[in-house]
């Protein structure tokens, strides 16, 4: 009778090579804006919780996202640093928004007589890291805190001359369910 034995270690998980390289590069470059948004939270144990919000995850299975993040950290920071990561998650911006993680949004409130156009504002939003997964003509630039949104608003005003008055920050208050659960 055949006797099959399987150990604890699975075969190495599939990673998305192109995304590993891109993410490793982002980790090294530490740009102030644009996707991916990489959030690291260090625990008192020195373990890390990493969330990578990135529209490139669209259609990539969750397991591959985690494997890709871990691989990218290993390439960028080394094995020891990678082993400090206790929990790594990859989410697209719409997924993070749906989970209530990005309540702040920077919007372009463009009027007819403003010196900048809607299209220019959309381009600036996308350069700043807005997601186009909500729709090509509906770029959404979202953040978890007001401070991050305010910093983005200031960068947008610099990126697009004369646009300062059009940028506004909104905060979603959540559903009735959110409030009941607090």
């Amino acid at each position, binding site marked *: 009778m055949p006797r099959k034995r399987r150990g*604890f*270690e*699975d075969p190495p*998980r599939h990673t998305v090579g192109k995304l590993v390289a891109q993410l490793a590069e982002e980790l090294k470059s530490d740009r102030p804006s644009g996707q991916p948004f990489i*959030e690291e*939270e*260090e*625990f*008192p*144990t020195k*373990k890390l*919780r990493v*969330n990578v919000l990135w529209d490139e995850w669209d259609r990539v*299975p*969750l*397991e591959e996202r*985690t494997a890709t993040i*871990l691989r990218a950290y290993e390439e960028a920071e080394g094995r020891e640093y*990678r*082993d400090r*990561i*206790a*929990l*790594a*998650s990859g*989410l697209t911006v719409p*997924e*993070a928004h*749906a*989970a*209530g*993680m990005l309540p702040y949004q920077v919007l372009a409130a463009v009027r007819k007589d403003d010196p900048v156009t809607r299209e220019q504002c959309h381009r600036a939003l996308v350069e700043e890291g807005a997601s186009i997964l909500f729709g090509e003509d509906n770029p959404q630039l979202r953040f*978890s805190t007001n401070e991050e949104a305010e910093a983005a608003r200031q960068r947008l005003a610099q990126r697009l001359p004369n646009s300062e008055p059009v940028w506004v920050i909104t905060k979603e208050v959540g*559903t009735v*369910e*959110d409030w009941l*659960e*607090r």
Partner: protein
Amino acid sequence: MPRRLIDRCQPDSIREFRASAGQRYYDGLALAGAGNRTAAVYLWGYAAEMTLKAAYFELFGLAEDDELTVPGHIQPAINRGRAAPLNIAWPHQGAGHNVRAWAELLVGVRALDPGTAYGPAFAVAVQRCGQRIGQLWKETLRYHKNRAYLYEVRQVREATEWLLINSADL
């Protein structure tokens, strides 16, 4: 007169979750063997959910037979997962049944204390089981007529088995 089934059920507890997780796993095997693939996946998802919840509440310090309630235990656990430092993506719909999020909560909370943190490979394996089941299972499967593919049945079974086999170490 014998008490009815519902009246014979014990309150939700770590012990009940663990015992019924094993039963639902074997129920699922029987269903899969009879070709009822979606029904098998449906039960295995619950088996995984109960295994993870039992592990979390044991870590939390509850006794095996302490009663678990939604307002007293489940919802506070979800709120803890959503908040910093864990920041787990935990959508409102079906929150109590989100296997992926429960797995991440367990891994994350364990990492907060050096005495309880999983090793890197084990942490990834727990999270992976949650992710895999989370992509193929929802409690709302019961409302749908779709038939699970064979590879989907295999993936959910393997992930559930892994959690059950390792439940003492979770």
